[in-house]
């Protein structure tokens, strides 16, 4: 079949990319081949706009066993104990169909982890939506949370934390990012099709027309009125099939039956058949008739790019194939030998006896276009940074405080995380509601901490500084609970990369992430880029979400953020710059202002604080970092979660000192007897420490104003339920 030039455009390929394909093949591509190229060369699969920048990130470290490029990064968190850590985005599908979009997002990242031979044991779900006063937004929030809940709970992987941010720029482009932690149970797997003669076995759900051009097309073109036409490509998740897939794959891995394993995500069968062979320098012959299908009359190209969920491709020695098929049968999931690894370097697709595609694996998987897209610092940045930062004194301090405490970005996210099983595996030593989650790896005493942070507003004002602040806050959160920051994964959510200012934001974020990760010794082990988060020309804030992983000595005390005991001293660590209000929650909520420059980060101060938290771990009884809302909000959160009040000593504290968001700060508590030791530890670490108050009583006594604990709880806990319980599940 010859291909009309208009067709490749419909498939999202440029004329130039089409010419590269013909050049690479030495002929016009067949329909099936063109479809395969269109998904494999899509932004989503090929990272064609981001590659040149991602290359700059630090990826090496003594404890990094596998860096970017595989299903997930692998980090050694204790001698002989390795975990998989990876984040994914499912932004566009979740906007089209929130429940299934979010559910299949969880399914996808879990299969990434599984493809490394790791058992998925924890999820984080960083979410971003528009303001909650909009009915459609409330519908999206409810659907997304319900989708994550029903999928994650059913497959038995706890969701132990995340983020929920509400800001105008996400109204038409919500962000649904999901990070997953896994633990290697028996042996590390690789997505490589080694050994000609080995068989390719497709495991899991049947292949249907649904999801054709799903993520790969949806996630690679800007939204517009025509998005509705893409709706049929919505995926319906099947958590039950995923659960069986997890157990069956882990069992066949530990039995040593698998040579190579990869998940099927965006790109469908085209992806593992080309990537696994390309990595191994082999080829594969695939008999499409062996792919079991959900509907009759599917075209070969449909089978090749269908993104039907809950499928994995395993490469198996011929002698072990029967065992694999029997094992899958016992778990009640379908498995079929669909192909064979061959010595050539080509992916050959046969359908009903005829070859419908014959393409060099490398061309599909590795030789996609790479764009060093033009970038330019937009002129509006200067005006924005010169604009007022919203630091003016509020008419009423306690009203300003109350407004902050109940603002959706700060208020308790309990309404969300109580819908998630966050306890299964009996390893959640610290769950949602604190600075980071602490997970005890199953069957061990090894503990890791995970958290996610992505201050989009800071990045909008200054993408370089914002990215540094994101990494620093994530590291700080992990340090607060008693862990040492080890490595990050990320989700980089941006607008249209074909726009110079978006590419500039992207390159600045990469630069900031690189500098911060290098300084903190936390390499990037992988991640995900989501472009085209833009509707009708309006892009989201540049939003890099940083997923930080930390390891924890078994001897270390797991520190919650809750105040514990009457009479304990509250110690503030770090330096407060009262002018650090640009992009703050105070400026946004009280003055509805987003302008100026974000707080400046002194990396030495950050490292000093992190060192102190490790050093003083046995001296302190709680720790909570200062972030959105500053000192006032962190004090309130620790009081509310601890169900006990506090009193500040210096009554005359300036409002800016209460709401400033200067980084590298935390509040810790300790017994009065230990105060001098704590101050000493701070000095040794090189950070400033000051006793600012005392835990106790039934009210929040700021000196300049006060509030009963009960009404603080109402404002903090009541906010989300009151707005969201109206919506329909």
């Amino acid at each position: 079949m010859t291909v009309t030039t208009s067709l490749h455009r419909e498939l999202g390929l440029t004329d130039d990319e089409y010419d590269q394909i013909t050049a690479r093949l030495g002929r016009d591509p067949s329909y099936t081949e063109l479809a395969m190229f269109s998904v494999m060369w899509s932004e989503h699969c090929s990272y064609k706009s981001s590659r040149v920048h991602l290359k700059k990130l630090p990826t090496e470290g003594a404890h990094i066993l596998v860096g970017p490029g595989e299903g997930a990064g692998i980090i050694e968190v204790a001698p002989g104990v390795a975990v998989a850590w990876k984040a994914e985005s499912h932004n566009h599908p979740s906007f089209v169909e929130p429940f299934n979009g979010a559910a299949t997002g969880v399914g996808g990242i879990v299969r990434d982890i599984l493809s490394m031979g790791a058992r998925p044991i924890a999820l984080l779900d960083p979410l971003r939506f528009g303001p909650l006063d909009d009915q459609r937004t409330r519908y999206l929030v409810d659907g997304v949370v319900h989708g994550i809940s029903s999928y994650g709970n059913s497959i038995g992987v706890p969701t132990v934390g995340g983020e929920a941010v509400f800001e105008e720029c996400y109204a038409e482009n919500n962000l649904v990012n999901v990070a997953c932690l896994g633990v290697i149970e028996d042996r590390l797997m690789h997505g490589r099709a080694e050994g000609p003669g080995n068989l390719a076995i497709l495991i899991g759900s049947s292949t249907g027309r649904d999801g054709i051009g799903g993520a790969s097309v949806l996630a690679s073109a800007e939204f517009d009125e025509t998005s509705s036409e893409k709706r049929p490509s919505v995926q319906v998740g099947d958590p039950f099939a995923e659960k069986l897939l997890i157990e069956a794959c882990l069992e066949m891995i530990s039995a040593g039956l698998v040579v190579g394993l990869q998940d099927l995500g965006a790109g469908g069968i085209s992806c593992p058949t080309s990537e696994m062979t390309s990595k191994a320098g082999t080829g594969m012959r695939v008999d499409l008739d062996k792919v079991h299908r959900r509907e009759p009359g599917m075209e070969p190209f449909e089978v090749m790019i269908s993104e039907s969920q809950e499928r994995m491709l395993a490469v198996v020695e011929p002698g072990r194939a029967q065992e694999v098929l029997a094992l899958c049968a016992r778990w009640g999931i379908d498995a079929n030998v669909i192909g064979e690894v061959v010595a050539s370097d080509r992916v050959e697709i046969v359908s009903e006896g005829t070859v419908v595609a014959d393409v060099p694996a490398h061309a599909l998987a590795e030789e996609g276009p790479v764009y060093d897209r033009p970038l330019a610092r937009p002129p509006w940045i200067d005006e924005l940074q010169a604009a007022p930062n919203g630091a003016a004194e509020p008419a009423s301090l306690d009203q300003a405080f109350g407004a902050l405490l109940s603002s959706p970005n700060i208020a308790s996210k309990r309404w969300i995380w109580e819908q998630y099983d966050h306890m299964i595996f009996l390893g959640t030593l610290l769950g949602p509601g604190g600075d980071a989650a602490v997970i005890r790896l199953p069957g061990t005493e090894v503990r890791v901490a995970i958290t996610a942070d992505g201050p989009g507003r800071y990045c909008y004002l200054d993408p370089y500084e914002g990215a540094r602040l994101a990494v620093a806050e994530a590291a700080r959160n992990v340090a607060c609970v008693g862990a040492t920051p080890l490595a990050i994964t990320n989700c980089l959510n941006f607008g249209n990369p074909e726009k110079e200012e978006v590419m500039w934001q992207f390159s600045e974020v990469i630069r900031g992430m690189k500098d911060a990760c290098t300084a903190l010794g936390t390499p990037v082990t992988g991640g995900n880029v989501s472009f085209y988060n833009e509707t009708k020309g309006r892009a989201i804030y540049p939003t890099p979400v940083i997923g930080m992983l930390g390891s924890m000595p078994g001897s270390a005390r797991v520190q919650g953020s809750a105040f514990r005991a009457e009479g304990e001293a509250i110690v503030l660590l770090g330096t407060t710059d009262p002018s650090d209000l640009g992009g703050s929650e105070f400026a946004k909520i009280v003055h509805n202002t987003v302008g100026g420059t974000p707080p400046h980060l002194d990396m030495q101060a950050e490292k000093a604080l992190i060192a102190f938290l490790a050093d003083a771990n046995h001296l302190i009884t709680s720790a909570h970092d200062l972030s959105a809302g500053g000192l006032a909000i962190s004090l309130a959160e620790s009081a509310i979660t601890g169900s006990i009040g506090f009193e500040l000593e210096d009554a005359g504290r300036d409002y800016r000192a209460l709401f400033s968001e200067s980084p590298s700060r935390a509040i810790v508590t300790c017994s009065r007897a230990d105060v001098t030791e704590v101050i000493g530890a701070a000095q040794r670490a090189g950070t400033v420490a000051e006793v600012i108050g005392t835990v106790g009583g039934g009210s929040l006594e700021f000196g300049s104003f006060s509030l009963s604990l009960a009404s603080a709880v109402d404002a903090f806990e009541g906010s989300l339920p009151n707005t969201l319980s109206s919506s329909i599940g």
Partner: protein
Amino acid sequence: MTTQVGIVVFPGSNCEQDCEKVFRDLGAEPVMVWHADETLPDVDIVVLPGGFAHGDYLRTGALARFSPIMAAVQTHSRAGGLTIGICNGFQVLCEAGMLPGALRKNAGLKFLCKWVDLEVANPDTPFTARTSSGQRLRIPINHFEGNWYCETDVLRELHGNGQIVLRYADNPNGSLDSVAGIANRDFTVFGLMPHPERACEAILGSEDGRLILGSMLDHVSPKVGV
């Protein structure tokens, strides 16, 4: 000879490893039992763990109760062996008719994973012997369908027989009469929505779950599980 605990694994079960760990910590010897088996190994206690058997598709427990192993579980309890169904296991037991009533969607139409306080309504059972009447237990729930219901006359009968074993102190899901856990008439079968296995370690927030699982171990062999 240590107490043998058979943990039934349905496709979609997901709390079986947690139950295995906890019963081992309590000094018992857990064995996994595949749902498709037709016979139970020689066990003193049968556990139907939490999870989403068959994906909870159609109705929670609706498909699982037809699993071949369920006949053997019936025989085991008729012979006086103890059976506990936790969360999804409770739902299976109700669907199988081994316990009265049915579990509906939570009144709030939301999945709920949270710590709750329970009140012991009947301490004189093999499942609560370590507790006292009215004692408060702190144990987490984790379900979407925990809203237990039965007809009025059945409820009256259950009260009369002391088959209502655990009640919620503050009803989280609309459950009739705040019922959190019930037993069959001869107290060999016990079903509850809360997860005692999640409350067996101080570092996880509570050890009250040991009072329930330990009571069962005491009952079958007084030596272990202390």
